[in-house]
């Protein structure tokens, strides 16, 4: 057992309880927020019970002062005798053995370190304790991975104000821990794949580059977590093609072109995977008949689309001889027959079928018995989609995102309109989820990092994207599809998605937001603090520990902007 440092005694003038107690500090010692303490209590007939706790508040008072003006008499004139008393409020984290009695008043309180610290934080009971940050004592804080990777629980939810809450930074830090500690992660580390969406700026396009501002302290902190301070070793970057890139497909990124691949779907893939549905992701779309038309058209497309010989990825719409064209069948287009090579031509083809210009009746096989107004609304959505994400559909060689190319796949959708962002997210989530549904295996794990979750799974309304996210939240755990979702306000995200996250994290919160029931997992003192958290400080709650912990995480070893990219060895350095 490590040496014990006595810091004070359990306050005698107030009731101690099994939930909390106060410590009166020795004159020459201190406790700060988040410090861990231990009290030993002799329980009659049962022997020693150790109560572990975490400091949630620190207090001080001049005993003997009863009027506010006494402050000056005590501290300035020194005429009023008074005793300075410093104390700390402690929330109990654990009672060991599990005999729920309050710690004895007057008992000595020790700073918990070493084994006792592990006990206080339940590290000894964790199946796979993964470091998820650094406590105020500069020691790692752990989470039980069983509660992230699906064994006992899954998913992580991160909330906080944009800019200062460092949600994405924490998500990436967590990923780095997850992908760099196979010794802890175990068999779940094998072939683990991470899909990260870059929704704002280009922060995530430099994950493979060292950060020139990484200093000695940060490197030491990484070392304490058992991870070398180097960038992500295996990352592939993807971005949509530039709109006017013609035959030469160039990724649409501002700062970085090298090492970034452009992605797109061919009309064939668009039709086969039913991506049409992700053009109707506005929450209001589900309220009318649009979903019905979309479903019908989606089905019809799969039946009628047949490959064009010599034009990979392109299709023509031709009534099949029987129910649908057999897979792999290809035809030569007739004279004047429309070849679908992009979203533009798909929309044109659908327009001919659904809203013929010459006033003919629409093809009932495509439109069903839908009102003309609904058809028009459907077409209007397609026109706007064509304008906003038309460049994501193009015939030619497949340019779909290869999620197996690297351990971490970063998909930059920051340049896309909301509609385009939802389309890409929907398409990739569907792909990932269907793949796992198909195998039915939890391993290898597939982790998805998605910021601004409120845009994809808003609390109000329905959309195919929201439903899929709820599905992932509910069933992904057993299928090894794990969501690391981030949002500014948890109160604006679908309840089902939040509820299924076992690990909850918050950075700085808006004062009004912090009072909402979505943050009921915080202690009142933590809530108050959540308004003041500095960037890089997070509150983390996990099922294995009954109180939320405050932790920090080290400065990233990878660059988050072009200016941060460090030298990777200058060939002219020695000249």
């Amino acid at each position: 057992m490590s040496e014990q440092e006595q810091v004070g005694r359990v306050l005698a003038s107030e009731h101690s309880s099994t939930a909390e107690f106060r410590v009166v500090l020795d004159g020459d010692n201190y406790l700060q927020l988040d410090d861990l303490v231990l009290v030993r209590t002799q329980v009659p007939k049962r022997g020693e019970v150790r109560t572990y706790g975490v400091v949630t508040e620190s207090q001080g008072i001049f005993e003997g002062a009863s009027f506010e003006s006494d402050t000056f008499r005590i501290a300035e004139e020194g005429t009023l005798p008074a005793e300075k008393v410093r104390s700390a409020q402690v929330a109990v984290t654990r009672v060991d053995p599990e005999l729920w009695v309050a710690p004895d008043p007057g008992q000595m309180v020790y700073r918990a370190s070493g084994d006792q610290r592990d006990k206080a934080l339940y590290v000894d009971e964790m199946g796979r304790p993964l470091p998820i940050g650094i406590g105020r004592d500069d020691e790692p804080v752990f989470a039980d991975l069983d509660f992230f990777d699906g064994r006992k629980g899954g998913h992580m939810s991160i909330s906080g104000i944009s800019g200062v809450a460092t949600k994405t930074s924490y998500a990436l830090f967590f990923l780095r821990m997850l992908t760099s500690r196979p010794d802890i992660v175990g068999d779940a580390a094998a072939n683990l794949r991470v899909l990260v969406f870059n929704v704002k700026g280009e922060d995530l396009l430099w994950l493979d580059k060292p950060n020139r501002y990484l200093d000695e302290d940060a490197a030491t902190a990484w070392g304490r977590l058992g991870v070398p301070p180097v960038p992500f070793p295996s990352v592939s970057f993807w971005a949509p093609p530039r709109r006017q890139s013609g035959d030469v497909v160039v990724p649409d990124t501002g700062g970085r072109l090298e090492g970034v691949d452009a992605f797109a779907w061919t009309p064939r893939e668009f039709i086969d995977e039913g991506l049409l549905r992700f053009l109707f992701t506005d929450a209001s779309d589900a309220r009318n008949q649009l979903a019905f038309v979309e479903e019908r058209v989606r089905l019809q497309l799969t039946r009628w689309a047949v490959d064009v010989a010599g034009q990979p990825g392109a299709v023509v719409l031709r009534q099949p001889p029987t129910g649908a064209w057999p897979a792999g069948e290809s035809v030569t287009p007739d004279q004047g027959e429309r070849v679908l090579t992009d979203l533009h031509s798909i929309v044109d083809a659908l327009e001919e079928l659904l809203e013929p210009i010459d006033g003919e009746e629409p093809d009932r096989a495509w439109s069903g018995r839908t009102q003309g107004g609904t058809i028009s609304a459907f077409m209007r959505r397609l026109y706007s989609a064509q304008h906003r994400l038309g460049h994501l559909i193009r015939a030619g060689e497949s340019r779909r995102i290869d999620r197996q190319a690297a351990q971490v796949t970063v998909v930059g959708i920051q340049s896309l309109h909301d509609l385009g962002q939802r389309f890409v997210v929907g398409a990739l989530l569907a792909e990932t989820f269907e793949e796992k549904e198909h195998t039915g295996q939890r391993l290898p794990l597939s982790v998805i990092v998605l910021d601004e979750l409120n845009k994809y799974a808003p609390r109000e309304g329905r959309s195919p994207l929201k439903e899929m996210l709820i599905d992932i939240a509910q069933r992904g755990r057993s299928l090894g599809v794990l969501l690391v979702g981030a949002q500014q306000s948890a109160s604006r995200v679908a309840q089902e998605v939040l509820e299924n996250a076992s690990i909850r994290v918050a950075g700085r919160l808006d004062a009004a937001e912090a009072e909402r029931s979505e943050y009921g997992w915080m202690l009142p003192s933590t809530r108050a603090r959540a308004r003041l958290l500095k960037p890089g400080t997070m509150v983390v709650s996990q099922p294995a520990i009954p109180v939320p912990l405050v932790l920090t995480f080290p400065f990233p070893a990878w660059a988050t902007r072009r200016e941060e990219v460090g030298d990777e060895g200058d060939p002219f350095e020695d000249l």
Partner: protein
Amino acid sequence: MSGLYVEGWSPEYGAPLDISDERMAASPIDPSVEDGEWSARPGVDDGVEHVLFVDGVRRVEARLTFDDLADGIVPGIVGAFAVGATRWDRTVPRSTVGDVLVERLAILGGGIKPELPPVPGLSVGAESIASDDPGQLIAHLHSRMRRAEADLSARLASTGTFVIADGPINELRAQPVVGFIKTHRVSYLGPEHLALIGRLKAGERTPIFLIDAQYPRYSWYLRLDELPDAHSWTAIVRCEAPAALGIEDAVTLADRTAALLPIVASKGHVDPRAPQNLVPIGALEKALRHRLGDQAMVYRALRGAVGSERRASVVGG
């Protein structure tokens, strides 16, 4: 049944609320000991670094009755007192309470020494007085407290530290002890000198006069504060110092008190005895009362101990 009983009555019942320490001014007064004419003198802060305020509190814990079956009953009390000092360290500046002594006494009248059984957690001394008068029992407790205060003052002052004691002093030695008297029952000065007191401003004192009594001492009046809408003697206190100090040292002490005491005078909204009840002394009394412990617990312990011993003696006898 013979023996000692703890009365069920509240200990405060019938206890005199105040015991006057002020003696009659039969002693000769000499108002010409300090040089200069009889006029107001401003205080002088000579920068003394430490000032000690000594005081005590007392309490009746329980009323006793001794019944010897032959000569009727004898009254008694169990009383407690605490004395201590507030040390004002003007270099920091900070005040601390220290040198606390708590004593408990069983006192019986009629010259009978009480034989109190051991009381768990309490140490109770035993004393007797000749009188049967219940008032004298409390007076005895009071004088024991005063003696403890005087002992403490003398001990603290013997190192040369400046001591302000609550109440008159009985000191023959040349020690820097100043008695601080809040109430004025007696006039020491004749009308020609008395008028100056009403004209004193805050922080001013009268010249020193000598009280040539059993314990010869120098004395002076000073004003702590100027309060609106108050008679001319409000905020006036009288101080005294041992005559053995000599007039030169006495002037130093008098100047010092006139400068320092207004600083530590209390405010009306804080203390009903303001401004005479000095802040360090008020806080000291509060701390001492706290140190006397919970009265109900003490009372219960006394009753329990006395009762169980009598029961045991009945069973045993």
